[in-house]
């Protein structure tokens, strides 16, 4: 392995790590906020827990989307290119 190939591998690994690590911050904050609000609402109205749980999972899955994008980008950097 010459130095050019080594530099390319290094760039790939660092890039994939950064893509996943930075990309996971946003969805983490978003899902945390969704969960916190849902918990508050559940404590206020315990009879709505069933509906609130469903809606919370849906909102989580939408907030997760940007994290999934960065996961796909990380896989593409590692495996495809």
């Amino acid at each position: 392995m010459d130095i050019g190939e080594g530099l390319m591998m290094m760039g790939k690994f660092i890039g994939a790590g950064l893509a996943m690590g930075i990309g996971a911050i946003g969805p983490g904050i978003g899902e945390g906020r969704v969960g916190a609000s849902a918990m508050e609402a559940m404590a206020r109205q315990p009879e709505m827990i069933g509906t609130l749980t469903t809606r919370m999972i849906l909102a989580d899955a939408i907030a997760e989307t940007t994290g999934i994008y960065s996961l796909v980008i990380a896989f593409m950097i590692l495996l495809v290119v």
Partner: protein
Amino acid sequence: MNLNLTKSDKIFLGVISGGYIAVLIYMVVTDYKFQLEGVGQRWIYQLPFGEGPLSRVNPLTIIMTWVVMGLIIFMVTRVKVFKIIPGKKQSLLESLLDYVYDLVKDSVTRKEYVRPIFDIAASLFLFILVSNIIGSFPGINAFPTENGGVTFTILADTWYAPTSDLNMNLMLALFVFVMSHVYAIRVKGLKSWVKSFFEPIWWMFPINIIGEIAKPISHALRLFGNIMGGAILVLILGYLVKYFVLPAALWGIFGLFFGAIQALIFTILAIAYISSLIE
């Protein structure tokens, strides 16, 4: 907790668990190793004529799309006779479609468009749900090899879900996009539809166009990323542990749970995109 299982339920559960145990024995006997060679690669077939992107097809996507459509048609023809007192399959189907119908009825304000939008939404929901669920069972998959050939893996990976191909998802999202604008033209008329792009003020036109184009792209990439990312993640985790037990649990989580949620979200967003344009 008291489980009331009929004989056919026991046979069904027995076949499923027996299948998993048989796969486990098969993998132990043949000294199977998870391979990471063709991960993220697609089997692409070059048609004998033409050049460029339209001359290549993705055969596995086409085959599995027809398999999923055949499964849905088979299910529909099996429960054709609807009884007043529903059985198990009928009540499952009715509660699923009733949920989708309530979603459409809540978000669409014009009563005469509830039924056609429900047809679109339910078709999308059933197709994506079945193809995501198919992607959570071990089956046949194909990977390209180095020298242009194809290797078929049996029971090493899940069935190839057609929704893990971006072309399929982009087609579904573009279908929703085109249908939403067709409905918008029919409801508002051509003149006020064109005018809606120059809303609040005329120089917002490029921003409105970009906003419209971003809808199908994010719609398609969301489903694609979840299904393909889940599949690759399960494969890599399976490679790390080299046992069959963990992938089975992960296939259950990623295929059944996330697959059902993503099918529901795709449907909800399709309903929202269509109904926001026909207010």
